[in-house]
């Protein structure tokens, strides 16, 4: 008799539960609506802080792009700000030198250019791992910044490209002092990008990435095209970081070479870790919490802010390895367990 015919009902039920679990991860949970609701609510509750709000959304998108490579594919890089900078300058130079001021097409252009650079550098650099990759990515970002300074006649150097003007969104929404149009613009862009990222992560491609992160030797052994997958995700992440950079230039109407700073790469990494890697929404929590805390605490005392962030990092590594999101998940699991009889 074939083994399948003698499967007990308990086995069957177990199988069904397993299948259900896997499928359920792809569906949208109600909790997923929360960050979006909060973002929309912020528009109404804090109408005077929309300039700040747009910057938070830009960082969320930047952290999201890093999550793709760090959280899902396990690539540790110190040069991610390079792509942010490339996107920022694509839009900036386009507006300043070529008169290209339409915002939405600017986003696409930025995505294309940074994705291209991501592809080219990734193809070479992703053959390396560990400290080597770390230093190579860092060196690349710094050399880009130095190159920008060398041709500061083009880039404006550290004084940047001032007074960029962008056409109103869809020809209708003007940019006002309160930055409201910018906020909605950034939010919509983030939503579109997020949907795209979510699809990737739950696709077979996304599963392969997780496999690569967990056990790269095994993936090689089963014949998975590891290098190709890594380069693909690196390219996509670079493109998204480019869009974040483009949004930065558009919402600020200004860009300087400091977008390439190592500080930027380090900051976004801290945000992501605090929120929790490999979880998509970790980027939301991490970026939002970091920026709000920075805004409040550094007003009180900048020295304490730096100390506090350092301490937070140490505590996170020691006690909360999955970040804030991990803590939230643990807390909710604890409460649901309690509520069951």
């Amino acid at each position, binding site marked *: 008799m074939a083994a399948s015919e003698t499967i007990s009902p308990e086995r069957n039920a177990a199988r069904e539960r397993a299948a259900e679990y896997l499928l359920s991860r792809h569906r949208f949970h109600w909790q997923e609506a929360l960050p979006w609701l909060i973002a929309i609510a912020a528009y109404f509750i804090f109408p005077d802080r929309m300039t700040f709000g747009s910057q938070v959304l830009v960082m969320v998108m930047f952290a999201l792009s890093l999550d793709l490579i760090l959280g899902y594919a396990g690539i540790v890089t110190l040069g991610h700000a390079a792509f942010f900078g490339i996107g920022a300058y694509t839009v900036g130079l386009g507006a300043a030198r070529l008169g290209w001021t339409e915002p939405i097409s600017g986003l696409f252009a930025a995505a294309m250019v940074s994705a291209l650079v991501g592809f080219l550098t990734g193809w070479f650099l992703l053959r390396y791992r560990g400290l080597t990759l770390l230093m190579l990515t860092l060196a690349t970002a710094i050399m880009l910044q130095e190159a920008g*300074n060398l041709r500061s006649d083009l880039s404006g150097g*550290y*004084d940047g490209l001032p*007074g960029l003007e962008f056409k109103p969104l869809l020809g209708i929404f003007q940019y006002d*002092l*309160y*930055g409201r149009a910018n906020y909605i613009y950034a939010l919509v862009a983030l939503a579109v990008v997020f949907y795209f990222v979510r699809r990737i992560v739950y696709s077979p491609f996304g599963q392969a990435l997780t496999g690569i992160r967990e056990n790269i030797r095994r993936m090689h052994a089963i014949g998975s095209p590891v290098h190709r997958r890594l380069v693909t995700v690196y390219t996509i992440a670079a493109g998204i970081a480019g869009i974040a950079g483009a949004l930065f230039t558009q919402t*600020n109407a200004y860009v*300087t070479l400091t977008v390439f700073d190592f500080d930027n790469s380090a900051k976004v990494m801290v945000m992501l870790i605090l929120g929790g890697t490999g979880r998509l929404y970790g980027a939301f929590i991490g970026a939002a919490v970091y920026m709000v805390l920075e805004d409040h605490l550094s007003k009180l005392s*900048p020295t304490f802010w730096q100390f506090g962030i350092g301490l937070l990092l140490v505590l996170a590594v020691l006690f909360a390895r999955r970040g804030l999101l991990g803590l939230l998940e643990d807390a909710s699991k604890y409460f649901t367990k309690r509520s069951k009889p």
Partner: protein
Amino acid sequence: MKFMRWLGLTALALTVGGTAQAETVKIGVVLPFSGANADLGHQVDKAFDLYVKLHAKDIAPHKVEIVKRDEGPPTGAVAKTVATELITNDKVQILTGFVFSPSAIALAPVVTQAKVPMVIANAGTAWITNLSPYIARLSFSMWHHGYPMGAYAHDKIGCKTAALAYTDFPPGKDSTEAFKTGFEKAGGKITEAIPMGSPVQVPDFTPFFQKIKDAKPDCMYVFIPSGAHATGVMKTYGELGMRKAGVKLIGPMDLIPDNKLQDMGDAAIGTIVMGNYAVDLNNPENKAFNTEWHKAYGKDSYPDFMSAAGWDTMHAIFDAIKKLNGKAEDGAKVIDAMKGWTTNGPRGKVTIDAATRDIVQDENAMEVIRKPDGKLGIKVLGTTKAVKDECKEQKVGRCGS
């Protein structure tokens, strides 16, 4: 009847007296309070606080309310967010501070749109004042120091050739460009221009200075951001024995910030700079300024050119408030009140040029000497009066737009 008239007159007098309503003018102060440049922000902030404390009665019955925010790093983004919120959230009527040029540049379109005056206490890129009619500057542009130094170096110091060394960012390029224009006009020759790395890291100046030493120009004009670099420059200059080798060190006053001068040691003696302020400047306002400063902040704390600019900035704002009788809501009127404003401050006579809204001030050629009391100080060699920003006067590059 007489009584009624008396009553009426009294009532009228009381009403008229009462309409001198006490206004509170909200001023937003944007300065770097954190990070590597925090000490620059504090130098300006201390001057602001001191002026407000000592001169609050000048604008009585009106008051000022100061709201302070961190300018952040020199990327412009934080300053823009913070200042925009000062306008929309805190509803300030005047913005001031701004150590970094990118902050002011980023903010220009915002203040134009919001019609809020931005009174700059430091940011030195020459064409900033062109970016918006609501910008006034009380500090300096690189050309204020660099251009006159060019002529002075050639005519009075006797430099026939000069090398340029500068930190590779816009103020460095601006300043050396200004010097070069003035120097070449006076008949001098620039032997080389050496960029010395980005402003973020304090580099080892040795290879750059060694190259200049080997080329043996008469003078070396150095621009570095005031702060950590200044001490490094002086140390390296001394270590390489460049003065002995015949290369004189000259530059804008950023080269010898007052609060670091004592640390620089003997290597600094003989350096000649062009600037608008030094603690040792001999005028009554400066003496009073220093006395008040030491009283408030201790005998080991010194003001520097940024503090002096901050002092005059607050002075200009106060005078504008007084002129408008406390009504500072109309930004255009505030700026108009500042145009042509002139006073004697710690830097000597300063004026705000009505056409460019930039500062006009005396530039002093100053040499570092050891004073009788053993401390390092400066001696004024000569003064050029009422120097304007030549970049805008001659419409060089971006200044012409």
